[in-house]
């Protein structure tokens, strides 16, 4: 644990526009409360930069309670910072020591181009979802409770996959910049449930095709994604995606 106020050096990636070269800039930030979240610390940095007449650091954020998947910072070489199962917004400054230098980088993967500073474009994930991460059923009125029977264990399995917030930490942490954990979570959550059955085979084939088209790497089974995932999505889903793909490849009806 550290004292109540920290004096820090922040090494921040600054890049003005997508195709311009970026560089690290060092900023001194004094009197940072250990009770602040990491993003609140960046807010304080930006206040300081604005007061000095400099351009503030652009970073993605929205809900600041770990459910939206917007914040996306590589903090000291770790996606979302040193803790497991947390997003950057849930990381607190008490995890850092007085006098420490903190390196802050954007996610680095070619399918996630930098828009500005620490903000990357994650539209590639949206296009993967559009390729098959949905069910096309006429929902009509809300069905009666329990009219679609799903065993409790499978509900939990689907929920574990659905916990994915699409932040991209799996891609950021993977040495191959592979999106397999994300795609497998999105394939799994629907393949486990009855509503996902009609489109099951095409879903996995189309989503994998789109994943490749976006230029993500392949899975080497290092499990670094699982360790970095703020929603703690398991690599068991990657094995499930592989089974789904194999089944669709061999036995699909079309």
């Amino acid at each position, binding site marked *: 644990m550290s004292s109540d106020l920290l004096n820090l050096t922040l*090494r921040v990636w600054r890049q003005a526009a997508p195709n311009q070269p970026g560089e*690290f800039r060092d900023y001194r930030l004094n009197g940072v409360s250990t009770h602040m979240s990491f993003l609140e610390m960046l807010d304080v940095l930006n206040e300081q930069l604005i007061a000095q007449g400099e351009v503030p650091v652009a970073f993605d954020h929205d809900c600041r309670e770990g459910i939206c998947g917007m914040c996306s910072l*590589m903090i*000291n*070489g*770790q*996606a979302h910072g*040193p803790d*497991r199962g947390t997003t950057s917004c849930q990381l607190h400054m008490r995890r850092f020591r007085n006098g420490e230098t903190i*390196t802050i*980088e954007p996610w*680095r*993967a*070619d*399918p996630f181009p930098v828009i500005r500073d620490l903000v990357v474009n994650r539209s590639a994930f949206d296009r993967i979802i559009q390729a098959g991460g949905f069910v096309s059923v006429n929902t009509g009125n809300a069905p009666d409770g329990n009219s679609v029977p799903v065993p409790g264990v499978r509900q939990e399995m689907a929920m574990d996959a659905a916990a994915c917030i699409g932040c991209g930490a799996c891609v950021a*942490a993977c*040495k*191959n*910049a*592979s999106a397999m954990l994300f795609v497998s979570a999105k394939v799994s959550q629907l393949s486990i449930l009855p509503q996902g059955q009609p489109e099951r085979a095409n879903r996995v*084939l189309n989503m*994998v*095709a789109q*994943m*490749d088209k976006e*230029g*993500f*790497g*392949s*899975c*080497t*089974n*290092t*499990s*670094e994604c699982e*360790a*970095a995932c703020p929603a703690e999505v398991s*690599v*068991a889903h*990657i*094995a*499930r*995606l*592989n*089974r789904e*793909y*194999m089944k669709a*490849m061999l036995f699909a009806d079309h």
Partner: protein
Amino acid sequence: MNALLRVLSLPAVFLSKIPGLAPVVRACSTSVGQKFLMAITGLSLIGFLVVHLAGNLQLFAGEAVFNAYAEKLHSLGPLLGIAEVGLFATFAAHIGLAISTASMNKLARKSSYALKETKQGLFILPAGGASSWMMVTGLLIFGFLVIHIMDLKLKKGFGVDYTAAMNADNEAVNSFQAVKAVLSHPVHAGIYFVCLIALGIHLSHGIRSALQTLGLHHKNWNFALRTLGFVMAWGIAGGFISLIVWALGSKS
């Protein structure tokens, strides 16, 4: 890198021209499909290693037993030739796919991090454990393969004295003595030892990774499968290393 990928995709382009194969080739050309083929070829090569080790462990049973085994193997004639072509094709596919997927992975992150740390526990090997050393250990195994074929298939090992294995017409007839000549040569034994350690590292990640790629992941089975993978990897590497120890020990 893109040109390399195009060259590596030539076998797939050729195979897809064969009637009926196009859908299979397409399914196997994606990143997931290529990893399947990596896993299947990798496990097949392990199958070969197990058979090869089982045969070679007969060295412990003495000259007569081992030479009888070698003779039986060579008497298979064309069957052995077909098996060797199949083995070579499997190696070529495994290596080609490795270069192909590794190039795609490099293209996926062209500018790297200034600082990158792992969130997993301690690794015995740096940079994320055995999984980060697959290309390096794979290249060592490939180098070993070339030397090994020179040494014992072509009997042209650098600096090795094969006289004990030759008959009066200067033909290599005694496999037992040939193996002993190579394995008791300090430089060859050293190279073999280093490459077999590389093999152990390669397989210790390779087996469990192949199983995960083929979809085998279940909480009731993970521990058993991972233990089996580790034991098999070092059992195979250790088994071959025991032959080097034996040859060096029985040199005099």
